[in-house]
């Protein structure tokens, strides 16, 4: 037996020390670390050559015999954390400070209680700013969408970016759900109630046992487990209001009419044309439809009510323990008629079947229904952009002109207005979009103990999620969809995800006094299938017919073509063999190593097995003899870790050569779909981490510093064929991307008495740099209305476009040879945006593009401070990001002056013949003036008070009621930012290229909640 051999050798090496017996006496005293009061009657044990035991007296004093070297002193006392210390030769007296088990220490392990941020409705939200290295960006104010999470930077260009989530020991695959609404992320993990979570552990440099899925980091989530046989019942109820986002200042009707007139004149119309076609500009009073003053943002946004209830019951006996919870969340959105509700149940049971056979069950079932609006890039249909660009002169309701020239507002929704803008109120009231998910996650874990060293476990798990999305967009009041000849659209999107997971593992542990060895090895299999069934139909009979089937089909004339049906099945097979060894010598020197071999249906034929590994060494300097006099230092652990991890989110079929269907006339043909690559494999990240954990003054102050360097090679990249190959290209591996940074976490118990004051902070500075690309050429990626560049020496996906340098005040400032805009061949003139000409060739085109900054933050984190006095406690939590750029698409709409859309008030400063000294171009609104440029790239750095929580525990207790807590809480109450959009925090999708693009999803805003927690 290999491990025993090693152990024997180690034991043999220390044998000389063991033979030298010595007996000494240790005296000491035991205190509470916070109150510094002596603790009486504490059990004290010394494990040396022989075991001795004693108890402290009523004043905490004790005397105990110690034999041999490396004797281990152990103390235990109810309500306090266990204490252990190796005793050095010659030590005669020791003061011991026990730490109350209620005291939390911030480290990579986060514990959730109800204490902090009760109103985090998703676990991602609750993690914001709390872990150094973890950058959490909420996708929108719909918490069901979850958040974008980047651990130690963006480590890929085209592969998956998100960390692996392991729920109660089962790795969860994130299916790529398709959505009926652009940019709406159907979040597989939206069923988790934060209150069901007991512990979250963030493995920033992954763990090799999750080999090919660990490169983006691993987040271990453990749900509430029963601990004792006693019955506990907790009930929480809370409710609150989310405020409307602060408005973007827009034209009032007079400003709008001035602008419209100016634009029409600049576009070449004379007074006669305007009078004939746009007479309302001259005489609004004469045209009731144009004679309103509507604040469209108020039509779309409103205060939103949310409520949340949660009941948890824990109990059981020596044989069987359980924790059952049910929860309900109803969250209205600030966009009217959008909301989300969640029913969730969770059952965790621990069953002692035989003396040495244990079973753990984790079962969760939830129903999440979200009522959506058509958020997304389509400006005429997204209620937010539709409201922003809708001229204020229109009314949401029809106006009836009376005989006397006055007008009466009817209680009927107005249709698309004469200028062709949607009625945002119709979008709010008449579009009908639902996303429902029925999600079950369950696992059974059987563990059999052979003896005190060996055990073996088997786990089977099922993850099943049925997602159904229904969409209906009516005709009245809503412009036609982009690229579609017909109005009205109905879509059904039914997706079934099922993941089967099995794991078989053998554990070994040998917790010797001096040597502590734990090891495990195992193998697991995963088989996931995502089935998509989608039907789309257009031009239904009327706005009340929301089903598919009766629209857009006329077989007789074979007239209309839009009906679409798509059903497909996508599948991943995965297996992983892993091993892990941890060894500690005297709790002073630590070595751990783990590795895995991984096979996966995504890899090319030449790479069926991948090997990953990690090794970490640690040294707790504070445990050394020479540090014994430095009693202020509890811990000073130096760590170095090297790991080689993979990212297998490279697409399920990208390595395959295959054909796909394509119709020719009415018959289905086959065409080449993918050029296979037998060499396609995972991306691998080599992660180096050097860190220091320091704990001072009896854990009053803890500090963790990490320096890391993560170098990802074999990036998933697209190889483009030359034109005479005919095909686009194929996926391959190549290039290198490096993330390096520093992380800092600090936690201090500043005042620790009846009045308590704690404070802490996290800080992460990360630098991403592309080190190489296969042919050295930069990769240009297109996003809606913009481009990004990934170039060697720079951060990935930097914004890439023209650099605006003000406005040509007069024709004399134009280049003498004239200047042409390549995209439409138009010539620049006075009042146009002046762009930097990189290539001085008289043409503004892609040769003039420059990098406009990175959407990734230079540094980010959070800081907090907690106060507690008697039953009161107050927590303040701030989060910040610095140096991240964003593409403000809404401002592009509001300052483009492209058409008769309403514009932001900033446009009042536009160039006019009498106002030439300005940065805002003229009302002409030529496409050259709203090209993707630095005009629309903004600094989205922010500092915000994310959460304020004030609670009070009523000093009342009886046989039934154990505790009553009342609390009020505020989120996002204060945000300092220069960003001009609604909110600087948004995420359009998880892909690397969607960072920092603000396509007007429902914005985050302030909210206030109140509630109570009852303990029975």
């Amino acid at each position, binding site marked *: 037996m290999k491990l025993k051999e090693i152990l024997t050798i180690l034991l043999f090496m220390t044998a000389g020390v063991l033979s030298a017996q010595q007996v000494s006496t240790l005296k000491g005293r035991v205190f509470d670390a916070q109150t510094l009061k002596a603790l009486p009657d504490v059990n004290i044990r010394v494990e040396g050559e022989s075991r001795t035991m004693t108890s402290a007296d009523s004043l905490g004093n004790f005397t105990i015999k110690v034999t041999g070297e490396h004797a281990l002193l152990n103390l235990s006392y109810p309500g306090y954390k266990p204490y252990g210390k190796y005793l050095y030769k010659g030590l005669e007296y020791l003061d011991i400070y026990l730490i109350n088990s209620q005291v939390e220490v911030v480290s990579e392990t986060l514990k959730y209680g109800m204490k902090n941020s009760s109103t985090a409705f998703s676990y991602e939200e609750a993690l914001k700013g709390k872990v150094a290295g973890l950058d959490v960006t909420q996708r929108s104010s719909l918490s069901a969408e979850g958040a974008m999470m980047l651990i130690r930077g963006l480590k890929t260009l085209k592969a998956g970016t998100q960390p692996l989530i392991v729920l109660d020991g089962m790795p969860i695959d994130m299916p790529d759900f398709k959505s009926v609404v652009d940019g709406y992320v159907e979040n597989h993990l939206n069923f988790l109630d934060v209150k069901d979570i007991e512990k979250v552990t963030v493995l920033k440099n992954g763990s090799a046992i999750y080999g090919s899925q660990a490169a983006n980091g691993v987040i271990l989530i453990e749900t509430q487990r029963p601990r004792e046989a006693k019955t506990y019942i907790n009930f929480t109820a809370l409710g609150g209001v989310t405020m409307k986002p602060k408005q973007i200042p827009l034209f009032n009707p007079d400003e709008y009419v001035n602008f419209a007139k100016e634009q029409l004149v600049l576009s070449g119309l004379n007074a006669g044309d305007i009078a004939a076609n746009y007479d309302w500009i001259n005489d609004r009073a004469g045209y009731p439809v144009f004679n309103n003053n509507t604040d469209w943002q108020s039509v779309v946004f409103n205060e939103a009510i949310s409520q949340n209830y949660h009941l948890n019951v824990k109990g059981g006996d020596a044989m069987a323990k359980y924790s059952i919870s049910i929860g309900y969340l109803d969250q209205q959105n600030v966009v009217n008629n959008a909301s989300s509700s969640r029913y969730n149940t969770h059952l965790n049971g621990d069953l002692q079947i035989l003396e040495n056979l244990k079973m753990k069950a984790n079962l969760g079932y939830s129903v999440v229904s979200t009522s959506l609006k058509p958020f997304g890039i389509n400006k005429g249909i997204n209620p937010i952009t539709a409201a922003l660009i809708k001229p204020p002169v229109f009314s949401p309701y029809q106006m009836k002109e009376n005989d006397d020239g006055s007008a009466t507002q009817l209680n009927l929704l107005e249709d698309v207005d004469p200028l062709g803008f949607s009625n945002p109120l119709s979008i709010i009231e008449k579009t009908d979009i639902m996303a429902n998910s029925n999600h079950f996650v369950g696992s059974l874990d059987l563990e059999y103990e052979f003896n005190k060293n060996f055990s073996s476990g088997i786990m089977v798990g099922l993850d099943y999620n049925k997602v159904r999305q229904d969409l209906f967009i009516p005709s009245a009041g809503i412009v036609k969809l982009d690229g579609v000849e017909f109005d009205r659209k109905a879509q059904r999107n039914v997706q079934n995800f099922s993941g089967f997971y099995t794991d078989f593992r053998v554990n070994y542990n040998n917790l010797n006094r001096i040597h502590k060895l734990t090891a495990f090895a195992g193998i697991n299999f995963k088989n996931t299938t995502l089935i998509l069934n989608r039907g789309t139909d257009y031009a239904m009979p009327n706005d009340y017919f929301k089903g598919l089937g009766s629209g857009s089909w006329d077989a007789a004339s074979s007239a209309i073509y839009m009906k679409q049906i798509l059903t497909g099945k996508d599948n991943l097979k995965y297996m992983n063999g892993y*091993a892990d060894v941890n060894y500690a010598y005297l709790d002073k020197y630590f070595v751990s190593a783990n590795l895995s071999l991984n096979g996966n249906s995504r890899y090319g034929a030449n790479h069926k097995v991948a090997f990953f590994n990690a090794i970490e060494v640690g040294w707790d300097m504070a445990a050394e003899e020479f540090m014994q006099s430095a009693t202020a230092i509890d811990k000073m652990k130096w760590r170095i870790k090297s790991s080689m991890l993979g990212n297998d989110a490279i697409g399920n079929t990208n390595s395959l050569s295959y054909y796909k*269907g394509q119709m020719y006339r009415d018959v289905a043909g086959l065409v080449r779909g993918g050029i296979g690559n037998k*060499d396609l494999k995972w991306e691998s990240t080599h992660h180096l981490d050097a860190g220091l954990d320091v704990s001072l003054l009896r854990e009053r102050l803890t500090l963790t510093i990490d320096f890391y360097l993560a170098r990802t090679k074999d990036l998933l990249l697209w190889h483009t064929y030359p034109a005479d190959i005919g095909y686009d290209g194929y996926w391959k591996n190549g290039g290198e991307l490096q993330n390096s940074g520093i992380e800092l976490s600090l936690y201090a118990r500043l005042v620790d008495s009846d009045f308590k004051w704690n404070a802490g902070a996290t800080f992460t500075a990360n630098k991403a740099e592309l080190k190489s690309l296969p042919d050295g050429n930069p990769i240009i990626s297109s996003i809606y209305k913009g481009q990004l560049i990934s170039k060697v020496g720079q951060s990935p996906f930097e914004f890439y476009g023209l650099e605006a340098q003000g406005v040509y005040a007069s024709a004399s400032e134009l280049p003498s040879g004239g200047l042409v805009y390549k995209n439409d061949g138009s010539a620049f003139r006075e009042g146009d945006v002046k762009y930097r000409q990189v290539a001085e060739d008289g043409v503004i085109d892609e040769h003039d593009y420059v990098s406009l900054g990175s959407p990734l933050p230079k540094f980010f984190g959070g800081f907090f401070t907690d106060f507690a006095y008697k039953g009161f406690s107050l927590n303040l939590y701030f989060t910040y990001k610095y140096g991240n750029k964003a593409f403000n698409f809404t401002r592009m709409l509001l300052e483009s002056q492209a058409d008769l859309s309403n514009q932001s008030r900033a446009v009042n400063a536009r160039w006019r013949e009498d106002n030439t000294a300005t940065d805002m171009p003229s009302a002409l609104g030529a496409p050259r003036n709203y090209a993707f440029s630095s005009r629309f790239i903004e600094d989205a750095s922010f500092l915000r008070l994310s959460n304020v929580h004030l609670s009070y525990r009523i000093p009342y207790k009886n046989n039934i009621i154990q505790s009553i807590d009342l609390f009020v809480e505020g989120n996002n109450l204060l945000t300092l930012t220069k960003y001009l959009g609604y909110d600087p925090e948004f995420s359009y999708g998880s892909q690397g290229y969607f960072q920092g693009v603000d396509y007007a999803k429902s914005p985050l805003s302030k909210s206030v909640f109140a509630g109570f927690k009852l303990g029975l």
Partner: protein
Amino acid sequence: MNYTNKIKTVLLSLLLIGFASCNMDVDNNLIVKEEDSFKNENDVNALMLGAYAQMQELAPQLVLLNEVRADYLELTPAGSADLDLLALRQNNASKENAYVSVKPFYKIIQTCNNIIANVPKVGASDPAFTKEVENHYLAEATGLRSWTYFQLAKLYGSVNYYESYVSSSQDQITGETLTLEQLVPKLIAIETAHLNNFSAGFIRNYSAAWRRVRVSEHSTLAFLGELHMFNAAIKQGNAVEDYEKTLTYLGALMSLDSTTTSRQTFKVGNLYGGDKWSDIYKNMVVNADEAIFAVDYSKTYKQQHPLQDLFNTNPLLLFNSEYANIWEASDKRAAISVDFSSRQVRKFAMQKQALDDDAPIIFYRAADIHLLYAEALNSLGRTDKALDIINKGNAYVEYTPTGEKIYNAQSLGVRGRQNLPEIAIVASEAEIPEIVAELIRKERMRELAFEGKYWQDKIRYALLKGGNSFKNGEEIVSKDKWFLPQ
């Protein structure tokens, strides 16, 4: 063996046990894996139809590239605003120009090469896939490839000729550069060899209605006729054999169904009245059969081409009214080619309603081959017969080299079916062949305007004359400007 390797071995054997119980094959039902194709005739046919689906992308590009430089068209302001289109029009397009990509051509060539390479193995898994069926598909795929190479060479001057294909990143392509002059004889040899391999037996989707949108013995005859006319041009007219071959191949096509009165396969019948030109694209009259080789579009299946947009909806190219007199006053083809008030080209939009299928794009049709036939006759000195073809068709006249009678029930020539007066030439005997040749050129321009033949004809006539340039309006286009960059 070191320690890591031992662990690897242990884990690897565990993995292998795992592999035995769980295979790593991708289970995805929206794709057909490479190894699951070429099992039977249906698979081959599906891939062949896929090639035609890819033709739907190429066809409008062919029309555009062959017409955008034509003198009878001019760019609209919107067209000039498109700097790539402008460069193309001004004959100084660069390789990066958005319009000149050769990718759609090579995509079809790859598809054909894939079929040609794999068809021989189908028989092993499908007994019904006989040698005859195999030869048919080889002829069809080879024919489509040859035709595509020929189009490439006419536009770009040379091709990267290869017969291999890529299906995975490991596959390499090595080809040879062939100029138009080198390619034409090669293609003649290849196509002649395949001409008799088209099957009379059952081939899926190869009914009469389908044949006009697939490479068939008909399209191959027309293609060989055109190839020989180009070959003759390359030989600067000293090519009796090529002209005779043209007569053989096109004559065979024109003689089809010559003994029946009910069918008028590839005769220039009086098929349309008034505005009904678009019918020849739609093939609504079953026995009309003007189109020999075309690409269809189906709105029902979201297959539409951009030519209507290009010429009509947001026109980038308009007819140059200085050329209005190329048609005689009574020539109905004028009104069906151009709307003279708006100067819009009508051929791809005539009578088209918003919900109609887009007009097919036709590469070979009856009038085209009749005019080539007449040209070949004229080049062989049979000027009278050539004039007959133009004027009144070829009823009951022994015109084919074999002396076979070609029957045309309506006795209509290319001009005849327009009710245009017959052309009689009064000139000295020596001048007549050149006058008739010029007449045929004009007739091709009038007949085939905007169908993607104009620029190629200019190149062919210039080659025939041994010249190094041709006139395009006021401009003299030298040989280095004939072809697009690639």
